[in-house]
């Protein structure tokens, strides 16, 4: 029996900061970042938003599209590297808020930017194994970038939620594949506020090796080629990396454009490729095939081949669509407000 996505939901905060605003504070050259990394602006969570609040909103939207009773969910997994608590799960709050408690399994996951696709993979696998009827996988982050660091231009916020099941699918999962090695390209040690990274080392031996290897092996095992896909979405730490990866694999710009959100909202980390997938599902037609490959530093990639079903036409307008949210009255903030929102100002205790 086929398994796949029964409902999906996306959430993007309304606040934005432009690359120019960050660059002028640090004396950096904005055009260099905009051209070099293909970034224009990024989403900024307000002080009352975090991984839990965004996950709740994305999950409620996924439930609307799924048309299922939340009490039927057998599991909830949230992947993030910015869980609000170091010890206390995000998933319990989300499960309670959407009305899914108490008869379910719950876990918070962490694997840099790949944690969201991990949640999707585990939810999908449990349904496939027949352990449960429905399971919820969420990718969400309010990612951290140290002041003045290159990451500050991209680290942003967003969430995507997917309800996996066996009936009434909007996209069936045809194949999965994961590629994992120990590669120290990016990390955040315990009690550290900001992550560290290996600069250019995050490129070839990390992002590209894992993303390309995962995509190639997945397509080989599935017996598919780039031309067999209508859309492709890759992890998007900036606007440049996913375009370079897609070109190397033989995908065209048309295949990746719809799911390429990072130039407009930055890198939503665990939410990145999952949010790109929601944007694609918003426009995909029945029968369209979608390649999705995530990447998480440390390092690994999860790959999925999705095939869109007839039911997509019935559900996509039941909740806010991803690009519509991105374009809906963004509120631009200056660096001072951004620093206050992100807790970057040292206050008297």
């Amino acid at each position, binding site marked *: 029996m086929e398994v796949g996505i029964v409902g999906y939901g996306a959430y993007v905060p*309304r*606040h934005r900061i432009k690359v120019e605003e960050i660059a002028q504070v640090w004396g950096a050259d904005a055009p260099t970042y905009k051209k070099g990394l293909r970034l224009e602006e990024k989403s900024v969570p*307000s*002080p*009352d*938003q*975090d991984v*839990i*609040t965004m996950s*709740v*909103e994305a999950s*409620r939207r996924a439930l609307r599209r799924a048309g299922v009773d939340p009490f039927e969910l057998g599991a909830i997994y949230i992947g993030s590297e910015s869980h*609000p*608590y170091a010890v206390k799960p995000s998933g319990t*709050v989300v499960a*309670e*808020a959407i*009305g899914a408690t108490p008869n379910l399994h719950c876990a918070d996951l962490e694997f840099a930017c790949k944690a969201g696709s991990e949640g999707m993979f585990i939810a999908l696998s449990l349904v496939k194994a027949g352990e449960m009827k429905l399971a919820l996988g969420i990718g969400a982050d309010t990612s951290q970038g140290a002041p003045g660091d290159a990451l500050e231009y991209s680290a942003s916020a967003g969430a995507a939620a997917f309800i996996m099941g066996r009936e009434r699918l909007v996209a069936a999962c045809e194949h999965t594949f994961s590629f994992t090695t120990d590669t120290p390209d990016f990390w955040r040690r315990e009690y550290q506020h900001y992550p560290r990274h290996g600069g250019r080392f995050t490129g070839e031996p990390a992002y590209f090796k894992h993303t390309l290897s995962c995509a190639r092996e997945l397509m080989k095992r599935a017996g598919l080629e780039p031309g067999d896909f209508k859309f492709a979405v890759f992890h998007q730490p900036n606007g440049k990396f996913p375009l370079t990866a897609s070109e190397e694999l033989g995908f065209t710009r048309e295949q990746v454009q719809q799911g390429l959100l990072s130039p407009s909202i930055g890198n939503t980390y665990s939410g990145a490729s999952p949010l790109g997938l929601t944007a694609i599902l918003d426009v995909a037609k029945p029968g369209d095939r979608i390649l999705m490959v995530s990447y998480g530093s440390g390092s690994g990639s999860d790959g999925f081949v999705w095939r869109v079903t007839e039911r997509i036409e019935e559900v996509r307008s039941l909740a*806010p669509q991803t690009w*519509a*949210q991105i374009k*809906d*009255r963004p*509120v631009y903030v200056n660096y001072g407000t951004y620093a*206050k929102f992100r807790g970057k100002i040292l206050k008297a205790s």
Partner: protein
Amino acid sequence: MIGLARHWREIPQRYRYEAARCDKCSAVYFPPRLVCSKCRGREFTKTVLPQTGKVETFTVIRVAPTGFTDEAPYAVAVVKLDDSIRVMAQVVDCEVEKLAIGDRVRLEFRKVQQDGEAGAICYGYKFVPEA
């Protein structure tokens, strides 16, 4: 900062907007109560409040109480939920100077309070402009 136990008790209202409808006279209470103030009925049925409505009135808090000082100025509104009761909550993601009576808003899940950097986080509802 409200106590942990109280916050925990109020989860059905704060997280899921669960109200009580009197079985005798259909009056809706949010938060629920034990005795209906209209008909003295004691039997209630759980009902979930609509999540959209219209601003009936509002005020802008410029001198905020402890725990909310970083948010000032912020708006607190009385909102008439569609075909339902009135609820009071903060209105966020809007320019307070442009907020107006009659504006359409919807409920969204947000952080409401936190007990400093190390304490518990209390979640609940706020209003945001309807898309």
